[in-house]
């Protein structure tokens, strides 16, 4: 594979781009907001299969007459498959689902197969949101701790900044594209955290090794060397992971599409960030072999 690419010279421009995109993402998340699914917002979701002659407009029309609040109807995969989302006005309306079903079956005059029905109450949805935020924060904290135990604090900060970068930008892209955030997206985000960390650790491991090996050269050069040495691994692993993910995205069905899309984004951003975010931070902290010697009592293999 190609070797000796001068990554360090591109750090500045990459960092400016990262910071820009990072804050743009935050702005989007704050002002445009995230498109929460019923898992986090509460409401009812119905996936149905109809004869092909039926279009979304007629479904919308027949539901609008029911006056049940915001209704969103969209195509879902195959021709004739629709996903209906209803934002409930009242809470705990146990009659809602049978009513909607009856209404649709009656007004569409054709066989309607209700393939999936989900209903999440307002209390449960806010709990799910809360526990998801806790889970992501806990995962970040656990990673921070693990790296702090295995490396020095500068590495810990570097990796956590890279992780935040990945998570925020992934969510930012979801906000820009108005893609739905549901429980499986949270699972994807957590996996991204794991994957990105994995990538960062591989490069950090090499940087630490090279810092002790080449005490004379600067951290920039050590970083550059380490990134280059691990580059072919970084690329190969990204490719195999992406091969698996693209196969889920294309063939895995409609339900897994959002999940696999988030993962694909995350793998690309995570790979980028371990090179262009995690490594420059070590330079920023002026890490050298002395940093390692200071903390020699720590476990250095």
């Amino acid at each position, binding site marked *: 594979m190609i070797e000796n690419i001068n990554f360090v010279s591109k750090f500045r421009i990459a960092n400016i781009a990262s910071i820009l995109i990072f804050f743009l993402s935050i702005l989007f998340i704050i002002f445009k907001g995230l498109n929460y699914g019923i898992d986090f917002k509460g409401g009812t979701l119905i996936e149905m299969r109809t004869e092909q002659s039926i279009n979304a407009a007629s479904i919308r029309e027949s539901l609008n007459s029911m006056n049940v609040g915001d209704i969103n109807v969209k195509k879902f995969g195959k021709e004739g498959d629709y996903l209906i989302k209803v934002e409930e006005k009242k809470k705990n309306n146990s009659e809602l689902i049978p009513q909607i079903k009856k209404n649709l079956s009656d007004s569409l005059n054709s066989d309607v197969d209700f393939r999936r029905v989900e209903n999440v109450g307002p209390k449960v949805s806010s709990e799910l949101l809360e526990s998801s935020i806790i889970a992501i924060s806990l995962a970040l904290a656990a990673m921070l701790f693990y790296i702090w135990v295995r490396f020095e604090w500068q590495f810990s900060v570097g990796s956590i900044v890279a992780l935040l970068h990945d998570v925020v930008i992934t969510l930012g892209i979801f906000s820009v594209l108005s893609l739905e955030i549901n429980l499986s997206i949270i699972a994807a985000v957590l996996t991204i955290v794991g994957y990105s960390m994995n990538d960062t650790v591989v490069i950090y491991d090499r940087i630490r090794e090279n810092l002790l090996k080449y005490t004379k050269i600067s951290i920039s050069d050590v970083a550059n060397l380490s990134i280059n040495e691990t580059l072919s*691994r970084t690329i190969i692993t990204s490719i*195999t992971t992406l091969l*698996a993910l693209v196969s*889920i995205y294309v063939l895995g069905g409609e339900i897994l599409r959002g999940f696999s899309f988030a993962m694909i984004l995350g793998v690309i951003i995570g790979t980028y960030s371990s090179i262009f975010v995690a490594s420059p931070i070590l330079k920023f902290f002026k890490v050298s072999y002395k940093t390692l010697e200071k903390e020699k009592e720590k476990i250095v293999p």
Partner: protein
Amino acid sequence: MLNFSKINIVSIYLIVFLISIFSILNFQTKDNIYFDKKVNLGLDLQGGSYLLLEINSDSLVEEKIQSKVIPIKKLLRDNNLNFTNFKINKQSLDLKVDDLKKFDLLFFSKKENLVNPYLDNYRSFELDYSSLEDNRVQIMFSKFGLLTINNAALKQSIEIVRRRIDDIGTKEPTILQRGEKRILVELPGLKDPERIKKLLGKTAQLNFRLVKENSEFGIDELISENGEKLKVSKRIIMSGENLIDAQPSIQNQQNQPTVSFTLDRLGAQKFGRTTTDNVGKRLAIVLDNKIISAPNINEPITSGNGMISGNFTFQEATDLALLLRSGALPTPLDIVEERTVGPDLGEDSIKSGLISLIVGFFLVILFMLYKYKIFGVIANTALIANLLMLIGILTILEATLTLPGIAGIILTVGMAVDANVLIFERIKEELKTEKSSIHAFDTGYSKAKITVLDANITTLIAAVILFAFGSGPVKGFAITLGIGIITTLFTAYFLARHLTSILVLKNKNREIKI
């Protein structure tokens, strides 16, 4: 790193074989008595309903606080403590006492305090009070008092829910307590949960009361099923607790579905006495504060058998009988979360999940062959063993496989090769400087070992947290991802390393390229 003792080699392949063999169990069709283990399919794959129910204890608390009124008044009177302005609120009682100190002593007395018992397991009193201005106090349940009420109601509700679901006869339902107020119900294979939801949504508190214009116990004005407004006495002659059995039946004359019931001894006595004393009057049969029917008492019924007629269809009569048999819920249950997947969607999900697994798997295998040639074969052998072991362990644990779980397996396939890639790339580097290939492989393995471990532990941490916080399908993803990491580490470190050692030792005099 390339030296293996015989015993090591044997145990490596034995472990791989023994665990992998379990994956085959999933493909057997006949029931095998000795090894009847299989990966369970989650509700999203086999279809079914997931319901989360929450007890709504407001009315129960109201009832319980009202039951404290008379004992509290009696306690104060018996101890010559004057009180005024006694008021009953929804969840509390207000009163004004002459002597606040004395009240406090009485209220929190640990000795034979029947009004406000001390809950030993929580080290707290059942009731608590807060003092307002000028000697007024407000009495309500303490935090632990409420907890005790909720707990008891929840335990009882779970029992009733179980009875109702068992009575309907769905296959392998799961009914579990979730937290302090919730019940989780999983009903695999159920296509339409509406009937069960309806049955679980009714508290089914049945009682028999006389239709009366006025009564010393007070009057409730209730509406009957056919819209008639009737005044009934608050006095409950007999309630659902006195029923031993209830069955749907058809009344022969009008072909009208009815529910016939059998009373226990006490119920039969009460029912007999009331019907004897009130011939000619109307008896209201009240279910959840609605009158089902209010027939005339034509003659005394002393046999302990009776019949409820109403405007039922046979299905409704069957459901009512079921509700009466299983008993009343202590509180209403709210369905706070519901997820139902139809069986055909589940089948589609399995199909698309498997297709993407196979395609993803072959893409990765081909890529590794292209990239590493003979070492690609080693990595791929490890990958296949990895996949078989992963499915084997899922089978041994009888874990639940969900659609995200399948995604987790595919992701494992993509990420599992990472361990071998790390090692191979390291060896490549070592080969540049080392003359002896054996030496290069040896250092390559030992240097890459720590990195492989570090890199995989981070993903494992994410999987563990996901498992702890995730629910349902997401948990399934965490399980496959987590187990996948462990099998990955095993196959890379033992299996692939041994295969590499065979290759290297065979060609020790030739140059080896990766």
